[in-house]
């Protein structure tokens, strides 16, 4: 009987597992170790308007990669509307269109922005200076004077912009400024004056990011092209402060309207946002997921299902621990893979609470099961009765823990009840047949296995590796196959068979 096919399979699994893991590492830049957490903002824009029984076209400016932020994923929800994205040097836009719509309409756009300190805005060349619209006579003098004063007090474009803003919005606001403000809103006025003075500037819209805010709107900011730095400098149009606040996300940078609706009235856009942290690797993964159609992996699933898989993918680790303990050590457990399920419960409850809860439930269960054995019931009925008992015990402990203010006690509900019931049943039979010593050995073995499996499964590095590198599952498979081939002694057999090696000399 040739073992060659077996080793070929193992070799293939190992190679495939290692290759896919390395591929993921290189292609998707997923680190081998769990890195730092990255902050991700989820921002949702809701466009509302009243449609007027006719064709509707909605244009919404979209945020792009920029200093400090990177676009991860974006989604829209708009039933019945056609949707197209477009991008030009001035920015990105989404366009919704529909032939006929009536009544109140809502369109949703949501985007995930990764906080990336190293992210840079794409190089935008300064737009050619717009031909300044000439002022009418009284305003022209006021504008000229404003520019003149600010120019005199400044050294370059940036300082000129700052002075101008202070003259228009700050404490130094004079008569000239007040006069001009009757014609234009402050930001537009500042940009117009800057342009008039030959300085490239534009008005941009930004969103101040604050966690769990709803119904926010965009604020207006001024960008000035700073010649020596060859880059855009951003100014707060009310205070004249230079620089982008940490939490400012620029939504529209082309100097265009954020929202344009044709065929609707009362249009407005409002924003809500939420922040959460996720491993850098996951953030990168999301970033890439839209790039490739072939990204056929669980990471393309919705977040909720991914969280579920994070646990499922740990089960092979628990199984590996069981195999190791069985094959190399020879630990006896009650129910082969019961310890893995208990370990999964420990992940939810934390170790100490889990251990105490498990021991309490099994101990009380054994006492009650002992009474049930006097009732002379059929097996299935008895185990069902034990299941109900276990549920009752868990309920009682939970309520008790809650009353005593032990919130940790609430997590005992994570224990797999049917497994516990079978454990109690088996332990009880074992007790009757083999005595309490065997119960302690098997129960202790099960708990030891469960604790070791828990430690392995709860290790952040192992969690990171199993979840991010599916190829690891193949490697685990190969290892388990190899272990299933081990014909050597178990550790505990070295003790068991010891007497044989020292015989022929009667003591």
């Amino acid at each position: 009987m040739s073992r060659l096919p077996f080793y070929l399979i193992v070799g293939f699994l190992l190679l495939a597992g290692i290759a896919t893991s390395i591929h993921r590492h290189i292609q998707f830049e997923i680190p081998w170790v769990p890195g730092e957490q990255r902050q991700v903002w989820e921002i949702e824009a809701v466009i509302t308007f009243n449609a007027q029984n006719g064709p509707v076209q909605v244009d919404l400016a979209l945020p792009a990669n920029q200093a400090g932020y990177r676009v991860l994923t974006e989604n829209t929800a708009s039933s019945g509307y056609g949707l197209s994205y477009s991008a030009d040097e001035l920015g990105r836009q989404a366009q919704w269109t529909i032939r006929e719509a009536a009544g109140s309409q809502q369109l949703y756009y949501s985007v995930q922005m990764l906080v990336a300190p190293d992210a840079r805005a794409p190089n935008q060349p300064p737009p050619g200076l717009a031909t300044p619209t000439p002022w009418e006579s009284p305003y022209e003098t006021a504008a000229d004077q404003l520019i003149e004063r600010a120019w005199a007090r400044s050294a370059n474009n940036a300082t000129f912009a700052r002075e101008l803003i202070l003259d228009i919005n700050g404490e130094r606001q004079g008569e000239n400024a007040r006069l001009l403000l009757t014609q234009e809103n402050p930001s537009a006025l500042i940009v117009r004056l800057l342009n008039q003075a030959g300085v490239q500037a534009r008005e941009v819209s930004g969103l101040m990011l604050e966690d769990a805010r709803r119904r926010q709107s965009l604020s207006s900011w001024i960008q000035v092209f700073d010649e020596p730095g060859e880059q855009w400098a951003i100014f707060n149009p009310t205070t004249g402060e230079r620089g982008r606040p940490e939490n400012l996300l620029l939504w529209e940078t082309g100097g265009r309207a954020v929202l344009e609706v044709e065929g609707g009235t009362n249009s407005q856009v409002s924003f809500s946002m939420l922040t959460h942290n996720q491993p850098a690797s996951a953030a990168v993964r999301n970033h890439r997921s839209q790039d490739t159609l072939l990204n056929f992996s669980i990471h393309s699933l919705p977040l909720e299902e991914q969280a579920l898989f994070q646990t499922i993918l740990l089960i092979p680790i628990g199984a590996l621990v069981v195999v190791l303990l069985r094959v190399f050590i020879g630990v006896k457990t009650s129910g082969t893979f019961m310890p893995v399920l208990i370990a999964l419960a420990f992940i939810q409850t934390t170790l100490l609470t889990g251990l105490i809860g498990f021991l309490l439930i099994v101990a009380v269960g054994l006492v009650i099961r002992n009474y049930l054995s006097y009732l002379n019931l059929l097996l299935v009925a008895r185990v069902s009765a034990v299941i109900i008992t276990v549920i009752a015990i868990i309920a009682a402990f939970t309520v008790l823990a809650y009353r005593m203010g032990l919130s940790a006690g609430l997590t005992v509900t994570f224990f797999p009840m049917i497994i516990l019931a079978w454990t109690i049943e088996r332990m009880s039979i074992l007790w009757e047949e083999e005595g309490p010593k065997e119960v302690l050995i098997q129960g202790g073995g099960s708990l030891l296995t469960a604790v070791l499996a828990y430690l392995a499964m709860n290790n952040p590095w192992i969690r990171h590796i199993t979840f991010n590198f599916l190829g690891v599952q193949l490697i685990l498979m190969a290892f388990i196959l190899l272990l299933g081939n081990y014909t050597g002694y178990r550790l505990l057999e070295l003790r068991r068979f010891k007497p044989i090696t020292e015989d022929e000399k009667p003591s």
Partner: protein
Amino acid sequence: MSWLSNWTWPTRLQDKGIIGMNRRNIRYIGRYNSRKLYPLVDDKLKTKLLAEKYAITTPKLIGTVSTQFGVKHISAMLAGHNGFVIKPAKGSGGKGILVIEKVIDNEFVKPSGAHLTITDVERHVSNILSGLYSLGGSPDVALIETLINFDESLMEYTYEGVPDIRVIVFKGYPVMAMMRLSTAASDGKANLHQGAVGVGLNIATGAALRGVQFDRPCYSHPDTGHDLASLRVPQWDTLLNLAAGCYEMTGLGYLGTDMVLDRVHGPMLLELNARPGLAIQMTNGEGLRRRLDLIERQPDGVSAQERVAFARHHFARQSELGASPDTTAANA
């Protein structure tokens, strides 16, 4: 380093030819025991019917109970039988076996002297049917067999229970044998890990080689005080032939056969085990490895008698129980 004194090195076990659990499972059970043959030995009823076909003596079947409804009729079935054994068809490790030595005034007496009522017996049967003792808790059938009148020559070596003889049969060759003597510590059961005494038997003669209780050497029965050195199983050749014949009967290459000696019927097959334990190595003070290796080199298609003769010739051993006068007397 005192805690290390209980441990040994793998190389020393290897030198002794000891087989570990993993090796037994992969190398012998996995290779020589086809899965589809397991039901033949895991179900004692099937084993029994098969044994009848192959003219292998087994304890006489009084009847079977397969439905909870049938439990009610058990007293009718037992009428006229003074001693009987109730066992689950799919039980393992001697679990769920109820031995009734005699019936006095509708009271059932166990070997320990405890009295049971018919209700107790019915409950036991009902538990068997619901799968309490079967592997995996699947529904089961209860077998009721006549009590074995076991050979008086062995009476002194046991306490309460019936001593049984385990022979490991590899590819039809009896490779190693031991006798399991129940003790007070084992509660009348012949399970070694519960404290029964295991006595390694010389394959050549059926005489005791070595006694072991709780994995430690032992020279006399702890309860009866009888010297183990004088132990010698009668009708040894018949017994080995019976054991060897189980290979043809089941087709299982690595088989544990449990036999008893009946006063009238001689050696009888009690049950078969497709996954026999490794404790037999402890009782023989020798590993199975060399014997199994030797058998593996033998050609197939040898008759049972020849296989027994081969084994008796090659696996002969000297007793380690000391050349006491008893041994010579027994051999004479």
